[in-house]
């Protein structure tokens, strides 16, 4: 059973900006689409930073997977949005996610070596845990458009694989020892 990581103080901001599922505001379909796309884009930005700053194979391999998979999911989301002829709506959750990511990236840039690797790895684990719970407990039940709900469900399979991969990465790096 996967454990739910208790974030160290230094990482608290990473999760403070993404509300616990029970606290996620009610969003409409277009806002959910925007938030989900934004969350994927943020993980792509983290991955680019990891590829630039880390020399650890475990981190670089994980970041490469994030770049490939989240790009594919966001491409599928973009195609769906185009098919539906709608425009995702910016919202408070998306803005909070972006603000939190900006803070995290600023902090990550001050780190190097093992300190960066563990900060990135633990953030990825916590980020995927919270995002996955939000997608499963809030987004999917709330969405009213079937194709969007199906896409979120498919994406959740991918994100859960990422969560398990992140857990292995944290263990391999010895960050939680």
């Amino acid at each position: 059973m996967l454990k739910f990581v208790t974030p160290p103080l230094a990482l608290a901001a990473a999760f403070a900006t993404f509300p616990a599922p029970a606290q996620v505001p009610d969003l409409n379909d277009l806002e959910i689409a925007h938030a989900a796309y934004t969350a994927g884009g943020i993980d792509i930005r983290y991955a680019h930073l990891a590829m630039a700053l880390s020399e650890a194979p475990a981190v670089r391999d994980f970041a490469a997977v994030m770049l490939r998979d989240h790009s594919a999911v966001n491409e599928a989301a973009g195609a769906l949005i185009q098919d539906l002829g709608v425009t995702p709506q910016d919202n408070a959750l998306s803005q909070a996610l972006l603000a939190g990511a900006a803070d995290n990236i600023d902090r990550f840039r001050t780190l190097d070596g093992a300190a960066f690797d563990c900060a990135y790895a633990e953030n990825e684990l916590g980020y995927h845990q919270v995002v996955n719970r939000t997608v499963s407990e809030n987004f999917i039940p709330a969405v009213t458009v079937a194709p969007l709900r199906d896409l979120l469900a498919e994406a959740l399979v991918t994100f859960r694989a990422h969560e398990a991969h992140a857990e292995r990465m944290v263990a391999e790096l010895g960050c939680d020892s």
Partner: protein
Amino acid sequence: MNTGRSGLAGGVLRGAALAFVLVMQQAAAHDGPHTHRVHIEDFAFVPATITVRPGDTVEWINDDIAPHTATAGDGSWDTGLLSTGSVGSIVIGADTTGRIDYICAFHPHMRGVIVVERDDP
């Protein structure tokens, strides 16, 4: 219990159809190379294990959003990146026998097995 003409006729037809299918299946085991399809869905190879013969083709179709590969555990072959809906394939060599383990190079926890059996008596 239906013992009428139509029931008997139906039974005969079903029996004939079953016999035909069995004959075709037996013939199929020996009538040249075949193509076996493995689906990649929910980050798993389905079925995870297939049994083939030398000269057969194995195809993988990616039903996931995320890109995957099918890559030999020893690195001797690789389908390359399979995006959503893409199909990759390999042909089993004429001299190949035994068990071939493979993975997704992007998600190594995804594992599959090809068992190559000969028709030799």
